[in-house]
């Protein structure tokens, strides 16, 4: 009896050490426009059927009075349809303020929110950006989970987003 518990605990303790890791860097380009607004950005993971497997981040005007910042969330059209409209905003652990031009490094650990647990399979990282008086862009980076070894992939936007780089580690 005791032994069983001991082994069970042993495996539980071992699990986090083997947890995979997912690093994302998102480049927000400097735009030459008369009226600049920092973009709204959503970052999420879809499974092979297009279902949302994890909502990683949403950057919007979280601090505007009366939740006014949520008004433009549907401009992130794909994210809004697949995930946003069924979330209560601000969503715990994923909502954050908008970011200016530059590269944002992000790290997500398996088993820890917001990434949580991903079943083995094919996935796509989606990064969608839209800005006020501007356009919208969706950048996708496919990947396999769990990764056998550390691997990187990237894709680039042409207007609202620069390079999106994904690194997965076992």
């Amino acid at each position, binding site marked *: 009896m005791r032994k069983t518990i001991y082994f069970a605990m042993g495996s539980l303790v071992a699990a986090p050490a083997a947890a995979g890791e997912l690093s994302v860097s998102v480049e927000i380009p400097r735009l030459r426009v008369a009226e600049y607004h920092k973009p709204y950005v959503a970052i999420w993971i879809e499974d092979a059927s297009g279902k949302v497997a994890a909502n990683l981040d949403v950057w919007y005007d979280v601090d505007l009075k*009366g*939740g*006014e910042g*949520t*008004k*433009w*969330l*549907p401009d992130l*059209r*794909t994210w*809004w*349809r697949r995930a*946003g*409209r*069924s979330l209560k*905003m601000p969503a715990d652990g994923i909502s954050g303020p908008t970011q200016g031009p530059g590269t944002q490094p992000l790290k997500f650990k398996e088993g820890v929110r917001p990434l949580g647990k991903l079943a083995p399979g094919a996935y796509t990282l989606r990064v969608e950006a839209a800005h006020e008086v501007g356009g919208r862009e969706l950048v996708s980076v496919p990947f396999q989970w769990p990764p056998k070894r550390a691997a990187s992939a990237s894709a680039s936007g042409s207007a609202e987003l620069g390079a999106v780089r994904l690194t997965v580690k076992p």
Partner: protein
Amino acid sequence: MFARSSLIAAGFAIGLATLVPGKAEAHRRWLLPSATVLSGDSGLVTVDGASSNGLFIFEHHAMQLDDLKVTGPDGQPVEPKIIGAGQYRSTFDVPLKQQGTYRIAVASDGAMGFYELNGERQRIRGKTVAEAQAAVPAGATNVRITESSQRVETFTTLGEPNDVALKAAGRGLEMVPVTHPNDLAAGEPAQVQFLLDGKPAAGLEVEFVEGGTRYRDDAGIKTLTTDADGKVELNAARPGMYYIETSASSGEGDGAAAPQRRASYTAVLEFLPL
């Protein structure tokens, strides 16, 4: 092509000899919302109502709003704020205070017709056939009464779409969603079902037209026919506001005892880019 028998089966309550697809009315009638997909704790849409040939152009008449009814996500009425009417369009705001789908409709039933008395043709109107019939004086001949149900509508959603406001009333022509009317994307086939007095309307001719008629040469009318379940598939290649219209009517009425019946339906649907 037009499945008469099934329409009769779907049936008007009043006895009918024949049923033919209704002829399109002279002008299209529509309610155009400022947005169909909104977010936040509360929101607002402003809606323009008009009748016109071009879509969605203010060029003919403002829409009468006497029969405007807005149904909220809980099925309860929502009070619109009427701004007013100009020559070509009327405008109202709809406050969105609850999460879910709103149905914005101008729907009415009525009866109208003619009779002859002493060689002169007279018009009659009523809210019901009985009311119109009561207005026919003794000795009148060639009585023609048409009972009509008409519905002009659109939909808008705050947050996540729901179905409560979309329940059929079971009267006249109605469209019920298979694909939710605020979950439409260009390039993705959508399905809707048409009901006539609450029952599937098979063999119904449906017109599906993309807005922006002023900026193209082609009329762009896609004519679709509902299947045995009253269902039809909508394919929007490009994102935008689309107009959908259908109607059905009985054959010539042959007197006050067998009034003609007519039902019409139009809606504006927005297909968003993915």
